[in-house]
Structure formats: structure tokens, C-alpha cells
């Protein structure tokens, strides 16, 4: 057992972990971050995606110790109900969430992607969520919502 520290959604997290424990397991079981979903535990579905130092990863394939000293962002770090991220607003308004179990992973993948590429094409948005499986929506409204959020984010950029 070893104690690690990292930033979870902007706040300091301190937790004792075994070397073999996955980031997914520690987030869900030891840090009550149940917004991170577990769909396959082998990197196939993307439901457990989190943003680790700016990059979307499958937390089931990362060891908890790899998060030490780094920053982890889950869907709850994107913005709360009082100040939602434009992605979250667009997902609600455009009906992009059905059962919703893939949505936390979907949103953090899109969040990391739009941070890097706010002017992405529709096809690039589809590629960005190629590792996030959704069984309900057919992805159409998810891509619509991502585009709407991207437009909003671009409109907020300071003019150079």
C-alpha cells in the first residue's frame, strides 16, 4: 500500500493504493467518483474515460499510481449544474443523452478534444469519440451537441 496525491477536479486527492489497482477502481471505490462508469474494464468501451493531464484516457487501463502528482478531470470537473460546460448544456438541449451511462466518458473525451481542436470538422468529432461506445443514440445527436458546443466555445475566444 502506498499513499498517492493528485488533483481530482481541481481539488487535492490523497489516497492509499495497491500498486496493481486501476485508476478506475480507486476513483469509484475509494474516492466516491461514481460518475466514472465501468463498462468493460479492458479499454474497449470508453465509459471510464477521464482526462489525465489534459489527455482523455481509459481509467480502467491506467494504474492509480500513474496519476500521482498529476491532474485528473472527470465529468464533474467540467462544470456543475449551476455553471455547466457548453458541452453539457448542448447535450441536454439537443437530447444527446439517452440512458446516459456512456455520457460521462463521452463528455470528457469531447472536452479534451475540443480544448485542443475547437474548430474540428464533423468527421473529426466522430473520430474523437471513436473509442466511446454508445448503444442508445446512434451518435447523431452527440455529434450535433459537440458541434454546437464547439461553436459556442469558439465564439467565446478573445479576438486576436
Amino acid at each position, binding site marked *: 500500500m502506498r499513499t498517492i496525491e493528485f488533483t481530482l477536479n481541481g481539488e487535492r486527492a490523497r489516497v492509499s493504493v495497491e500498486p496493481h489497482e486501476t485508476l478506475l477502481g480507486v476513483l469509484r471505490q475509494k474516492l466516491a467518483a*461514481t*460518475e*466514472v*462508469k*465501468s*463498462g*468493460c*474494464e*479492458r479499454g*474497449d*468501451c470508453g*465509459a471510464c474515460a477521464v482526462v489525465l493531464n489534459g489527455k482523455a484516457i481509459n481509467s480502467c487501463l491506467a494504474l492509480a499510481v500513474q496519476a500521482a502528482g498529476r491532474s485528473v478531470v*472527470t*465529468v*464533474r470537473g467540467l*462544470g*456543475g*449544474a449551476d455553471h*455547466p460546460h457548453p*458541452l*453539457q448544456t448542448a*447535450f*441536454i*438541449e*439537443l*437530447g444527446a*443523452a*439517452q*440512458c*446516459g*451511462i*456512456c*455520457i*460521462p466518458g463521452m*463528455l470528457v473525451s469531447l472536452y479534451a478534444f475540443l480544448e485542443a481542436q475547437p474548430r474540428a470538422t464533423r468527421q473529426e*468529432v*466522430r*473520430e474523437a*469519440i*471513436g*473509442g*466511446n*461506445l*454508445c*448503444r*442508445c*443514440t*446512434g*451518435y*447523431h*445527436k*452527440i*455529434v450535433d451537441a459537440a458541434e454546437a458546443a464547439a461553436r459556442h466555445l469558439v465564439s467565446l475566444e478573445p479576438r486576436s
Partner: protein
Amino acid sequence: MSKPGGHPPRFRIVGERAPRPDARDKVHGLLRYADDFALVGMLHAKVVRATRPSARLVKVDTRRAEAVPGVRCVMTAHDVPNNVLFSDVPGQTTAVGPLRARTQVLADDVVRYLGEAVALVAADTEEAAEAAVRLVAIEYEDLPGVFDPEAALSPDAPQIEPTGNVISRWKIRKGDVETGFREADVVVEETYRTPLVDHAFIEPEAGVGWLDENGVITLRVATQVIEHFRDVANVLGLPHSKVRIIAPYIGGGFGGKEDVTVEVFLGLLVWKTTRPVRLCYSREESILSPTKRHPFIMKYKHGAKRDGTLAALEVELISDAGGYAYLSPLTLLYGIVHAAGPYRIPHVKIDGVSVLTNNPPTSAFRGFGSAQPAFAYESQMDALARALGMDPLAFRERNFLHKGERLASGQELETAVLLAETTRRAWSALGPKRQPSGPGKRIGRGLASALTAYGRIVWLHDWSSAWVELQMDGTVLIRTGVPDIGGGQAASLVQITSELLGVAQEEIAVHIGDSALTPLAGTTTATRQLYMSGSAVHKAASELRATLVAQAAELLNVAPELVELADGIASVSGPAGKQVSFKELAAACARSHRPRSSFAIYQAPAGQVMDFETGQGKVFPDFTFGAQAVEVEVDEDTGEVEVLRLAACYDVGQAINRNSVEGQIEGGAAMGIGYALLEEDKVAAGITVTPNLMTYLIPTALDVPDVTTVILESGEGMGPWGARGIGEPAMVPTAPAIANAVFDAVGVRMTRLPITPERLWRAMHAAKVD
């Protein structure tokens, strides 16, 4: 009882793209699904599963497992009070012989499929439970297995049930097919095969159970059917009132959480240990455990006259039930009633048989036995049109059933039948044809139309109930036992109530899915919730509305006809009218002893059991009609098929939430693309070789195009304001439309799903060699 409805001149919120109340918690990660829940002292459970598809259990030795530190309980079949589960449809009131289907809770004596549950373990930690599972020593004596449904029909095959492998037969007889085929100028005969398919919801089967303060075994589980509390009670030998099931919002169902999954295992372990217990399947376990979509073998023979009218149809359906019946007999009934498609055919002979094998058990899956025959009959329509030199759309139009006409099973189509319109609209929505993206690429287009039942079989006497209440603060509460599996089941009820009471959605709370505290609403299956529970809520809210209007009229001293309810206020029509808030109205109701709440039961129109000899009779309350059209590009070198465009048109009667309707159609089409091109649970001699999402492929965002959806609203469905169900119908025409587009592109008729690159390449190659 008449259906609720009538047409107000315009709607306030019905039909709008209203944001769903459940969406907020979903996008903020606040929603606690079945496995996002824990209790103090909770044990972790695991299931010990058979590693042989057909074997006798010589010995199940649990001693070493029990000795693992932290293990609190190991249970085998001998520890189960009543080790039998019946797959009857909840609410079933008519005893129908072939529908009685049994499974054992834990395998006793023999296992019939790989993955069958043999023992349960509960331990302080998940690791201890996993260690114990590995230490349960099972000694098997392999038995001969049967893995091919046609072989299983032979009397020489190993018999899985003492009564034989055939678990149900259904038939339809109309006219005389021999006469019909004599009159036919063209006959098209083909055998079609569909695969074993996994529901592949992203949330695996999961739940937490505990003993509550009243001694009631309470199970908070991912389920489409909270009425399984009865099954758990029957297994435990307890009164039904001693088991309660709560369904939180579910992470996808599609029929895979319709039969019992974790409920009974959790119930047994809570009963045995008196501790809270958690059980969540791994993905591999989810794929190995029941249930799946039935593979069908479908032998079709159609006859048509030179003028393009259908003359005769002969069909034989064989469904592989796997190791246990589950809902296979019912699924097959849906299969035979839908087998002729939405067409007028004078002479019809349909036979269906469902047979046990040692393959994974099959049961409910979106389409419920109607998706498989749609692949066959719509491929046949395409082949017939081409054989007659007719346009596939024109050929279909000539033969489509109209309102007032009857299915082969004799059921009259009593509501709008917009087959021609939905088909034409879907086809034209494809727009101009694309050019191939390069050499060796071929573009093709295909079409498919379908009818799909919604609502429960009429002789099962379906009903739903709901409670709507005005709170003292002027907000509104709905209670109904609906499990929400992601289709917006709860949101639609809020929207209906908002419309009728004139209260904003934000002012309405909805409590769903609790078998003890919400009025039972029946299962979230059979595309029935909007129809059934929508109607129950419509009725309850309408009754409450009448009370509030009467109370307001009294307070405002006007005739009730002059009272309007809007924005949480009752007012008198006209400029500068008097008004009273709902909060004041609630207090006034309390003073005048008027109920502030209304409980309503909606009973679906019931009917007599069909004639089993002829298959004639009314089976379903109503149908949803629709069509899909696709454009594909086929790579001649690799056999790869890419769906470039997909257009769908359905008559949904009345859209309640336009986003949710489109969402069902887009998601259904995506599932249909998976069915057509990707998905197959591969089973070799009873062993599933695709036990994860790396080998069992469902569509990604890169496999699905944008879907063009055209919504028609005839207003003639059976639900609120004439709504029809759309959940299941949305995936039914996709696979045949794609197969027909592949034929259009490369001239090869693919009769087996999925159309993988290898299968298509081989078929193209064989066609060239010929």
C-alpha cells in the same frame, strides 16, 4: 374503456423538443445507476459459472471456497428454497400451454449451456469473492451436446428436456398455398440466417440488495421489470409482499434486462446472510450469461403474378432457443405474426418451431422475433421486384396492406396504415445519389418497410397505473412503477402531465420504478410504456385537472368552462381575468375536502386467444409502420460495406418529445447497422469465442452516418393523443435495407447476417466464378 385523447387545437409542450428532466443529472455525473450505490457492511457477490456447455455435475465442492478469508457465504442449488424460475409474462392471465417456461436458479444435476450459474459467493471484498469462485471445485461428466437447431429437431439428437427439444410450435393458415403458387408467374425461394446477438448495453447487469427495516428484501437493480419481485419471492418461498424491487435509471436494456438477471441471486444472498450485497457482472459475464437474440433460420418461398401482385407465401421459421426456453415461445409467436410483413397475400402458410440446443439461451431483444423475419421478407420483396423487372418501391406499394385490411393472421388493421407514404418519404429523403469515392468502389441503394407490434399481446390483459398529485406548494408529483431504460420513459410522462395541468416541467417531480411505493405500471418492454403508462398518466392527470378546474371555478366564481390552467396558475379566460395560483388551489382543495391527487388504471383493450390450429385471431393491440432507405458503398477488393446515408420515416401517431422520437430512430438505425454488418456472438460447439467488446463489435461513431428522420403523425395510435410506440420498430428495417443496397451495388444477394467483408468478398468471388 375508451382511449384517452381527443385533439386540443394546439399543444403547449407535447411534440416539442423539451429537454428531458433526467438529462441534467446524466450529463453532470450525478445519477446513481445500479452499481453506483453502496451500503455499510455491503458484501460483494460473484457467480460461479459452468465451463462446459453440456455436462452432468458429478460434484460441486465448495469447502475450499468457504475457507477463503472474508468469504461469508457460498450457495449451491441445494441451498435454494425453490430452485425454479418461470418465464411467464408478468400480468399474464391466460394459461397458454406452450408459454410455460422454466429455468433452474442454480444448476442442479446438469448444465445446459456454458456460463450457466452453478454457485454463488458473497465475501467482504470483491477480491475474496473472486478467489473463492476459482476454488469452487466442479467435477463434470460431459454429456453429448447439440449445437445446431436443425440437428436438434432430429429425434436422434441429444434431448435436452425429457419432453424433447421442441419447446413451441406456432402456425398460420390462410387460403391454400398450392392454389396460390399455381397462380404465380414468378417464385422466389431462399433461406435466410440471422446470428446470435448480444444486447451490449454499456451498463452490465448489476444491483445492490438489503434487508430493510420492515424485513423486506429490497433489491435496487438494473431491470426492465420490477415485477420480478414476485419471482424472487417465489424462489425464496416468501410472500410477495416481502420482496421489493427498485429500478433506478437503467444504463440500457433492449430486452436484455427483461428476464431475471441478478435479482434472484441477490435475493438469495441477502436472505442467507442478512447483509447488504452487491453483484455486478463483468463484461465477459454479461456476454456469457442469458439472454441473447435468437438466431433464426428462415425458409421463404413467395409467389407473385406478372402484374406484380403477391400470390402466395410459404414460410418455415426455426429459432434457436439455446439451453432454456425463457421467452422463446413468445418471441416465435411474434415471428410468425410478422413473418408475412405488411403485405396483402391471399394464400399463406407459416410454420414456426423453437428448439432447445446447448447454445447460449435466447429471449427478448428489441424487435422480439419480428426483426429476423423482416430481414427475410424485405430481401424477398427486393428479389421479387427484380425478378419481375419492377421498381422495388412500386412493387411494394402494389402489395401494401391498407387500413381495414387484415394480416395473414386475420387481425384487422384498425388504425392508419401509412406504409406507402413512409416508404416514399424515406426513399426520397436519400437525395441525389453519390459517386463512388474511387476505383473498385460501388454505390448501391436499398429500401425496407416493416410493421412492428407495440403493446402486449391482447389476451395477456395488460394494464398500467399511475398517481398524479398537486403538492401543497403548487408543484406536481407523479408516481408510477415505470423502469426508465433510457428512452425517455419518465420524461414523456412529465411532458404529458405538464401539457394537461399547465405546470412547467421543472415544477413536476416523477418517482418511478419501485414495486413497493409506486403504482405498478408493467414492464418497460414490448414498446408499451408510452402507450400504456402514458395513457395511465394521461388519465390520472386529466382527472386531477377536472378537480382543479372545479375548485378554481368555485374560488373565482365562474363556470368551469371558463377556467384555464397555465404556468401553475388557474385563471379566467379573457383579458384581465381573475386568477389563483396552484398553491392557493391546493390549500382550497384541502379545505373543501377535494382530493389533490388522482390514481388511475389504464386497461388495454383485451381479446380472445388466437386459434392455435389456424393462427387466426387478434394478437396485438396495434402496429407501428415505417421504412428505412440506405445508400452504401461497397469496396469490391475487400468486401467492406460503408453506410453512407440512412433515411427513416415512421408514423409515430403523435410525437410526444421530438428529440426522443428521433433519438429512438437514430439509435435503432445504429443498432440495425450493427445487426447488418458487424454483430455476431460466435459460438463454437457451445463455447462463446467473442466474450468482450473487442471481438463482439458494436457500431462506433465511425460506423454510423447521420440519420435523416422524417416523422409522420397520423394521430391514430393507441397511446396519448394517438401516439404509437417507436422503440422497437426503429431497428427493424435497417438490416434488410442494407442487404438490398448491397445487392444494388454488386448484384449479390446476402442471405446471412452479418454481412462481414469476408462473407461478402467470398459471395462476390463465387458469383464471378459462376
